[in-house]
């Protein structure tokens, strides 16, 4: 019974990832094999040079760094902003809370995008265009609603007595948050951080628009797109570029994933 379950899970799980395996395998093939192999992901011999070529031709080195900076910046800002907001929305019944909650929920339903021109003008007025900061700020603001909701749910589920005990011990508002609540929210920090990192890492349109004057600020996703445009028929290199682009975020997920479900479970308890 359990053996059958494992076999079924393993086979279907690996089949589920077939497109990724196919990309990985194709990234190591020669041009001719790519066309004759069809759906077989296994290369007949491994052409590691594809990675070197893709890395050099698309100047992935610099893009890599930009993507890391943008992702880290976006994650940090999002975590700070949403954990604070989620905390007060969960724990204090301040006047105007209902209005804030309503506003936050309403934006969840509105179609986003296509509002790039007002955002662009705004960034220009504060002189942040063509900097990594603009990408980070715009990116972070896109994820604050969802993150706030998750933190709110998580903090609501934490025992109120803990907080009261801290207050009795003379801890003030900030100390309660920083010393009691925040350390307890590790799984949620990992969850929101991971969601934000995935979006920031993969984002295309925002970095494209906000770094248009300075190609040296481009991210991997834009580099990848430009690469497709310039080397549109070098599909093995394209697959190598895909692997280069996706590998770091996959790795990050694998490292953080054990916190992930626990964090979500905490948020939905309410």
């Amino acid at each position, binding site marked *: 019974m359990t053996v059958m379950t494992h076999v079924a899970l393993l086979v279907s799980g690996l089949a589920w990832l077939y497109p990724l395996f196919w990309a990985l395998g194709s990234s190591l093939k020669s041009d001719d094999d790519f066309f004759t192999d069809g759906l077989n992901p296994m290369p007949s011999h491994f052409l590691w040079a594809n990675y070197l070529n893709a890395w050099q031709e698309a100047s992935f080195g610099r893009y890599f760094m930009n993507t890391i900076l943008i992702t880290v910046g976006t994650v940090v800002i999002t975590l700070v902003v949403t954990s604070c907001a989620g905390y007060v929305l969960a724990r204090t019944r301040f006047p105007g809370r209902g209005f804030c909650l309503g506003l936050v929920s309403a934006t969840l339903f509105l179609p986003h995008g296509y509002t790039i021109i007002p955002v662009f003008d705004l960034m220009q007025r504060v002189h942040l265009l*063509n900097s990594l900061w603009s990408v980070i700020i715009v990116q972070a603001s896109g994820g604050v609603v969802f993150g706030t909701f998750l933190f709110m749910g998580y903090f609501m589920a934490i025992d109120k007595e803990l907080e009261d005990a801290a207050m009795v011990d003379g801890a003030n508002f900030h100390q309660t948050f920083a010393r009691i609540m925040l350390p307890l929210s590790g799984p949620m920090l990992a969850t929101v951080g991971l969601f934000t990192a995935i979006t920031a890492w993969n984002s295309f349109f925002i970095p494209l628009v906000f770094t*248009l004057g300075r190609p040296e600020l481009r991210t991997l996703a834009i580099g990848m*797109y430009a690469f497709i445009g310039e080397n549109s*028929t070098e599909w093995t290199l394209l697959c190598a570029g895909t692997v280069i682009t996706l590998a770091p975020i996959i790795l990050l997920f694998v490292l953080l994933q054990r916190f992930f479900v626990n964090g979500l479970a905490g948020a939905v308890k309410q």
Partner: protein
Amino acid sequence: MSSPISRRSLLRGAAALAGAGALAGCSSGTSGSGASGSKAKTTITYWDWYASQASWVDNEIKLFQQAHPDIAVKKTTQVSDKYADLVSLAYRSNNPPDILMVPKSPQLSQQVSQDWLMPVDKWATKSWQSSFPENSFVEGVDVFGGKLYTAPFAAPAPSLQLYIHHGVFKDAGLTNDDGSVKLPKTWDDVTQAADAIASKSGGKVAPFGFGNSTNTTLAWWLDLFVRGAGSPGGAAVGGIDGMDYRVGQWKFGSDRNYLDVINLLMEWKSKNWFYPNSMSISDEQARAFFERGRFGMTVGGVWNQPEWTQHKFTDYSLVTLPSPSEAPKALFYGPPGGRFVAVSSKTSHADEAWAWFDWLYSPDAGKRWVEQGQGLSVYAKNNDPKSVTFAPFSQYVAMSGAAVVGPQPAIRNPKVSAVQLPAVKPDINDVLAGIYTGQLKDPQGALTELEGKMNQALGDAIKKAPGVSAKDFAFADWDLTKAYTTKPGA
């Protein structure tokens, strides 16, 4: 040219650079592109969307910087299908490049009226202009309000050709007595060749193939075939795409040739003569499949060639304008003059930007353009087929007679530049995809509807433009097989 770095050192580097990089990114907002102006060496920024032509541009930059040690050119190749949007945003943020390839949208007249571009008359004197062919500088094309903004770079050439795969043709027995490949000239020749390929290969090789994922290539087929039948508007390239300047109207529905070509294509399709994935693959994929002999014929432009050359695939021919009878009744038409790069009005390095402008337009740069097989040069002496060693490209150079200067409404009445034609959706590309995939069951009806909508849109746009009438688009005395000289104010 970075060497592969281990993940660990990469992460360590990232941590160290995080602070510095963020600071650099922050301070850039105030400095802008002119920051390096105080140094001895001036850096000018240059934008284009030339991806497959990048090797030519990069080489020119290298040579230019050798000749001008005090100027550095910083090239940015923007993603081509976002180019127009990015240029527009760059001007919005007052941060455009010093010199740029002229975007195809918005209309050049609008770019001039928005004060995007700087007139170059100061440098482009009459003697500078005299090295170009006659009628290269034309009001409404590259001259606006008497001022020169850009100049032609390439000579008129047939935009589209039918490419013939020698291997597939030989396997199907389509050869002449001397063993050379029998090139089709008429529609019937094409049909017969397709029939031979289909039957000889037993269905393994498709006679035709294309890559329509960007929804443009089906119109290339219509364009190429319908011109041969005598419809000068074509469907995909030319003035205001597809307009018949004999009457100043679109004729998709009323000119019988369009339906004839569509019926021909649909007949071929009903015989399964098109490579089955043609609608979903990209033009690039189609190019790779043609190279590998998956199909024998495809329609495309000269942009196919550099890559095939790079892959050492040279065993193909090209023919243009296949016709119902022997000689094509209409040709490809281009405007006199033309556009390539322009200097931005916002530049603070106008002289250096002009130097690069002048370099790109030099006969030598054009010569290298032709030698690399990128296209034809505006300077006729560069386009001698004898000096081109590569056979398919010399075929291309030799067929340059199939493209001539056509009528140009903006020359006869400069106010025509103010006509802003709104997009009509669905357009000819959509309609063709609808017919091809069987979603539009009545081709004639769809074509008639499209013709009506486009002429209606033109009529509305004309009403909004003072001093313009429908007559401004009609040239009744046009002989389709000859170059046409539009007379100002006639």
